[in-house]
Structure formats: C-alpha cells, structure tokens
C-alpha cells in the first residue's frame, strides 16, 4: 500500500514544484544517506578540532559543541525526515542547513581573511534559520508573506554586514558565546576605518532582525490559527523552540538598539544560542509525533472498519483523525477509469486548496482521497486513511464476489427445482389426459358389453375386468398425485396438505395460518418438504403419534412446521442427512429458505422451514391463477 500525491490534479503552480521536487530527488539520490552522514561527521569532527585548537576564543569547548551540532543536528534530523517522508522537501532543507553551517568554522580561524569571512557567514546561517522556521513542516516557502520576510531579512542584513566588514579594522562576534578572549583576529577585508558608519549599519541590521523576528512570530501564529488540526499539531510541537529563538532575538536586538551602551544580560544571549541549536530537534519531535498519531489513527480506523462500514460511513470515519471535514473518498469501478464517490457519482475534482491523493494497489490506483492540501505534508495520516479505504474496498469486493456467486448458485438451484416441477406437472397431466381417460373409455365399453352379454359367467368375468380397471385407475391416480398434486396447483398449500392429511394412516391436523397463494416454486418446495416430513413421522413417530402441520405466511416469509408427538430421536445421530433431511434442505435451499429439525427421544420431532418472499429470484413465478 502506497500513497502518493497526485500532482496532475493540483493547479499548475504546483507543476513547477513537481519539477523542482524531481530535481531535488535526483540530487538526494546522488547524495545517499551514508555519504551525507559520513561527510557531516567528518566536517563536524574537523570543526571541533579547529575550534578547540583556536587560542583566541573565550569559550572554545561550548563553541565546538555548538558548531558540531549545527552540522550534525540538521543533517541527521534531515536524513531521518527524508527517510520517513521521502516526498517532503523539508528533509533536504534540513540537510542543506547542516552543510551550510560547515564554513561557520572559519570563525575559529585566526587568519585575518578567513575569520571575518566566518563572521560574514552568519548571514547565510541566519537566512537558513529563517528558512527552516518559515518552511516547517512542508519545506516550501508558502505565501507571499513568508517570501517577503525572507527577502527583507537577507537583503536587510547583507548590506550592513558588508559595509561593516569593509569599514572596521577589527570585527568581533556579536554574541558572547563567540566572543574572543582578548582581541579578535584582524579584519583583513577592511578598506577603511569609519566607526560611526559601522555603528549606524549595526543599528540598521538590528532593526531588520527585530522586524523579521516579529513578522515571523506573527506569521507562525496566523498559520497555527488557520491550520488544519494535523498542521496545528505539527506547529505546536515543531515551532516553540523557533518561537523562543525569535523572541529572544527580538529582545536581544531590541535591547541593543534602545540601550547600546548598557550591559546586556548574558542569559539572553545564551538563550538565543541555545534555542537556535535545538531548533531541529523540535522538528524531529514533530515528525515522531505525527507518526505516533498516524499509527493511533490507523488502529482506530481499522477497529472501526471491522464493522464493515459503507463507503459513506468510511468517509466519515476517516475525516475525524485527519481533521479534514471536507475530505472525500473515491473508488475506481472495475474497468472504469473514472473515480466514483461514496454516493456512486463521479468524484468531483479537488476544490481550491485541496489535493487528490491516489492509493495504489498492485501498482494501480485503486482509491483516491480528496483532502485539504495541508494534509499532503502529513503523509503518514494519508497513508493510514488510504490503507483503511483500500481494506474497505477489498472487503466490499470480496463481499460482492461471494454474494454474486451465492446468488448464481441460488439461481441455478432454483432453476433446477423449477425445471423438475415443470416436468412433474407435465407428467401428471399426461397421465390424466392419456392413460386415465383411456381407462375410463375401457370401463364404459366394458359396461356396454356387459349389458349385452347373455352368458352369466362371461358377465362375471367382464365385471372382474372392470374391477381391475378401476383398481388401475386408482393406482394411476395415486401415482399421478405422487408426481404432482393438482390440488397444490389449483388451491395452494393448505388444501394440498389437507389432501395428504386425509389419506395419512395416522391423525394429521393441518392448520392454515393464512398462507394463501405463494409463488409456485415456494409452494412446491414447502409441499414436498412437508410430505417428506410427514412420511418420516408416519414411519418413525409410532402408531399413537399425532402430526400437526402448520403453514402460514406474512409479507416477508412463508413458514411451515411439521410436528409430531411421537417417540422422537437423537438429532445428532441423523444430522448427517438421514431420512431425506438433505433432500428437504436442498429443496428449501433452492428457494432461498432454511430448514431446521428439532427432536429428542420421547419429545417428538419437528421440522420447521422458512422461505423469504423476496420475489427477486428468477424462476419464481406467480401461481397460475394469479393472472
């Protein structure tokens, strides 16, 4: 089961994204996890070594740890991110951050050109930090506000930093953490000495930092307020450290602006450095939380989908944990390329701000989720929802398949039973119309002959022949009745069962609970099962037994029961199908009904059957009189 974002379904603006994404993908494929990790570790080790070796730094150990963390932290969190969310661009952004932080080590150089370059390198670091905060969790710089903030931040600092680097013979780190023990190395880049200009420039970039920090805080809060629940969850876990960093930056630079000569509390500077060093771990936690949440959501969805929800119910189930009330599910009909929604209509294309994610099965799209675009950056949840949708789809397909074969089987049984009934009716008619009529003619001719015969002995012989002919008529009649009872055809179940009861050698009561007329195939099935059960009662229930046959129907079912008060039997011993039980079950099963047999020694036997009157089964025709 895989889920991927269907880019074709989203507006063209995202087409460029796709292109870029593919380019990034190729890049990251070249730089495998192992190569990147090894490179980062080597770079970090070098950084630590160089920093510890530098003799002019005030806090070489702390600085070494920090600079190593600036490489290893984002690279490893980025690698993990890329592994969990291969489609997300945030992983590559994090990895890029780590490698951008490598030249930072120049600050540990006492070389008069390299050291100021290391200081100038604060600018790319700053830009990348802003980029991380602004693009979390998507890796995309979404919205004009974010782009503006980043542009202002970069340009607003590039100019002052460049001027300062050119205008001061000696530049030092702004932070106490990077402070030099006594004097920082000389600035080999300076071309002149203009302290007032440098101070104005410093003020300028402080203003920019304060403004950018404030704007970023506002933007993050706005995103939180307007985000989907999964997006809010990600922001709530991933950005507090970023907010802390921005807030402390805001305070620090604001303080420097308002009181440039006062002693700034050192704790604020440490706070800035600390918060910035931990930034990526906040993102890491957010990713872990998303996975945990998706796992929990999946568990809940699977548990709920065990109740075989309809597609519409499933859609509702999925909406909850995904926090997207507009979410829609689509399914693909066999041999159709169009998506179908839970109502069976063609799935409407995604609205503004929505995306369509396809869920594949065996490499082919089998289900689709139309969802809030923000959810694309929570692929674990989408995958969970997709898996559940697929599960439900497969269940439905299996259901449909076995119901289909069951229906086919039932139809074929019904057709067989119907064909057999038809044959029986025809045979019965043939007997009556052919043999019986001819026997009657024989009897009439015998009588006429008898009347003309003078010879007494011959007359008696003719009489004996007449008796035999009459017996033949009787036997033929019983045979015909056994083949197909005309009473069943003409007057229905109750009358046909009474006709049987009249001839039974033991007392049989027939109770008619308004069975009326039923479809012919059902009448035939009930009749043959009842007579079979009655035969069993006559054979096994004992001479003193009474039998009660009850037939009845309501709007939904036809029911019958043949109960005796005879010796009964052990049901377990005959449930293998003795005494025509299999035949009865088959007969009732052919019309979609069920048969039960209850009995115990000394407590009589009862055969009971119910047949649904759904009227949908082909071959179930109306009684002949209905027309």
């Amino acid at each position, binding site marked *: 089961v895989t889920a991927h974002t269907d880019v074709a379904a989203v507006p063209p603006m995202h087409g460029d994204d796709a292109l870029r994404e593919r380019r990034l993908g190729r890049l990251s494929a070249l730089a495998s996890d192992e190569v990147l990790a090894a490179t980062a570790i080597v770079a970090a080790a070098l950084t630590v070594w160089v920093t510890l070796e530098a003799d002019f730094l005030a806090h070489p150990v702390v600085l070494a740890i920090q600079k190593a963390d600036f490489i290893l932290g984002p690279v490893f969190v980025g690698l993990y991110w890329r592994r969990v969310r291969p489609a997300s661009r945030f992983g590559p952004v994090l990895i890029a951050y780590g490698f951008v932080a490598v030249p930072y080590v120049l600050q540990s150089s006492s070389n008069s050109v390299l050291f100021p370059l290391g200081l100038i390198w604060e600018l790319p670091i700053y830009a990348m930090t802003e980029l991380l905060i602004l693009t979390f969790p998507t890796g995309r710089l979404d919205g004009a506000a974010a782009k503006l903030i980043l542009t202002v931040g970069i340009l607003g600092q590039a100019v002052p930093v460049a001027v300062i680097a050119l205008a001061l013979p000696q530049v030092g780190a702004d932070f106490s953490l990077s402070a030099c023990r006594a004097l920082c190395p000389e600035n080999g880049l300076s071309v002149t000495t203009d302290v007032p200009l440098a101070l104005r420039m410093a003020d300028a970039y402080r203003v920019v930092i304060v403004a950018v920090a404030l704007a970023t805080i506002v933007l993050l809060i706005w995103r939180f307020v307007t985000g989907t629940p999964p997006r809010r969850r990600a922001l709530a876990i991933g950005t507090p450290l970023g907010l802390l960093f921005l807030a402390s930056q805001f305070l620090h630079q604001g303080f420097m602006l308002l009181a440039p000569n006062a002693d700034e509390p050192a704790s604020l500077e440490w706070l800035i450095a600390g918060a910035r060093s931990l930034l990526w771990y906040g993102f890491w936690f957010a990713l872990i939380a998303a996975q945990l949440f998706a796992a929990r959501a999946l568990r809940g969805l699977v548990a709920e989908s065990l109740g075989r929800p309809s597609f519409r119910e499933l859609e509702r189930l999925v909406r909850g944990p995904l926090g997207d009330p507009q979410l829609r599910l689509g399914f693909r009909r066999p041999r159709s390329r169009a998506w179908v929604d839970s109502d069976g209509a063609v799935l409407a294309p995604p609205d503004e701000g929505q995306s369509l994610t396809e869920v594949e099965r065996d490499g082919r799209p089998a289900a689709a989720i139309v969802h809030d675009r923000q959810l694309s950056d929570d692929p674990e949840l989408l995958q969970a929802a997709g898996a559940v949708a697929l599960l439900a789809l497969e269940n439905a397909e299996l259901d449909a398949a076995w119901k289909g074969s069951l229906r086919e089987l039932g139809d074929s049984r019904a057709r067989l039973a119907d064909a057999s009934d038809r044959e029986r009716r025809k045979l019965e008619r043939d007997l009556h119309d052919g043999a*019986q009529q001819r026997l*009657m003619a024989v*009897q009439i001719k015998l*009588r006429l002959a008898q009347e003309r015969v003078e010879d007494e002995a011959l007359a008696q012989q003719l009489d004996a022949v007449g008796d035999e*002919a009459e017996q033949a008529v009787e036997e033929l009649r019983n045979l015909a009745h056994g083949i197909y009872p005309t009473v069943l055809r003409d007057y229905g179940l109750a009358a046909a069962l009474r006709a049987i009861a009249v*001839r039974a050698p033991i007392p049989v009561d027939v109770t008619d609970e308004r069975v009326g007329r039923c479809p012919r195939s059902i009448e035939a099935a009930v009749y043959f099962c009842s007579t079979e059960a009655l035969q069993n009662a006559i054979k096994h229930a004992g001479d003193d037994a009474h039998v009660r046959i009850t037939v009845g129907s309501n709007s939904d079912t036809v029911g019958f029961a043949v109960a005796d008060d005879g010796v009964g039997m052990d049901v377990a011993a005959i449930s293998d199908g003795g005494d025509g039980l299999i035949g009865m079950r088959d007969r009732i099963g052919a019309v979609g009904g069920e048969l039960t047999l209850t009995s115990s020694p000394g407590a009589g036997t009862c055969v009971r059957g119910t047949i649904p009157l759904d009227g949908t089964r082909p071959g179930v025709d109306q009684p*002949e009189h209905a027309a």
Partner: protein
Amino acid sequence: VTIRVVFGEDSYIAREGILRALEDEEDIEVVASCEDLDSLRTTVGDVGPDVVLADISMPPDHTDEGIRLADELRRTHPDVGVVILSQYAEPVYATKLFEAGSGRRAYLLKERVRYRGDLTRALREVADGGSVIDPRIVELLLAAQRRREDSRFDTLTPREQEILALVAEGLSNAAIAERIVITKRAVERHINSIFSKLGLGESESFSRRVKAALLYLAGQAG
C-alpha cells in the same frame, strides 16, 4: 320429462365413451358437446340446459375449469344444475364445488361411468335440485374422521356414521332407507340425532344438510 344436458369434455375418447353411455337413457338428452370452458359457457347461455355435465379440467388451463364454471353459473344461471366428472379423488374439489351452495351440484369420479345408474342418478338428482358426492370422497373423509380423536364424531354410533356418509353423498331419506333397509322414519330419527350430536343445527333443507355433512367430514365445519 327429458333432462337437457350440455356436455363439456376435451378428451375425445372420454367424450365418445360417455356419449355412448348416455345414448340409451330415454329421459336424458345431450343437446350439445363442447371441448373448452369458453365454448361451454357460451353454449350454456345459448341453449339453456337443465344440467351441465362437465369434466373438471378443460382448456384453456386444464385446472379446475369445471368448478369455476359451476361457480359462475350459480350467479348467472341459478336453475342450471352442474355435474362435475373428475379424475381427482380429492375432497377439496367437492367442497369447493359446494362452497357457494350444494343445491343442483354433483361431484362424481370418472370411474362411476362403469355403472349405468351412478351417472344418470346424479344427472337426475341435480336436475331435481339435489346434490351428489362420490362415495369414494365421502369414504376418504370418513376414514380420516375415524382416525382422529374427534370426541363429537366418536359419539356417533356405527349406524349413525354410516348414515352421515350417505347424507354426505347426497342420498335422500327414502334412498337411505332403501339402501340400509330401515324405515324412512327411522332414517329421520337417526339424522336428527346425528345433527344434534355434531352440533350442525337443523337439517330442514335437503341441500343444506348435504353441504353441512360434507363440510363436517372435511373438517371445515364451524
């Protein structure tokens, strides 16, 4: 007086046989023969016979056309009698035939044609307003009644049971008296006793008592 009969029977063999059997009867005249329900119905309307002698099943459906026709005639031609000749020894057809009243109705099994008297007696009884049920049907019902533990039926003496069967067959008091060789008054006494024991009410009308007796035996009496 000649009894004018319209005959309905779709089997050629049976039709020819019965026509020959009735040929010799001086007081019975078969005025028309039909082979299906529709023509029989039309002919009855055209000819206005005393009695319709009809096979129970005919075209178009070969089911119980004879009985359905009898039912129609009860409304359209109440004075026309109907004798049903049936191959079915099923009490239900007889009770269906009597459902709308047993007067001028007879249900005979086809093997009765073996005896000259049975068919002609039925035709005459029906023309006379009476009812006839084939003894085989009554016998079946009586046997079933005897198997049951019906307290009322058990209170009848064997002779009364015999007389009940004859009543159900449609025999008149005189005919019963002659059949079992007792006086007509004794028959009347027996019948009164039977009807009061079975709770069948008064038996003043002849045709009603046949129906009551038949329905009682068929187990459908109130």
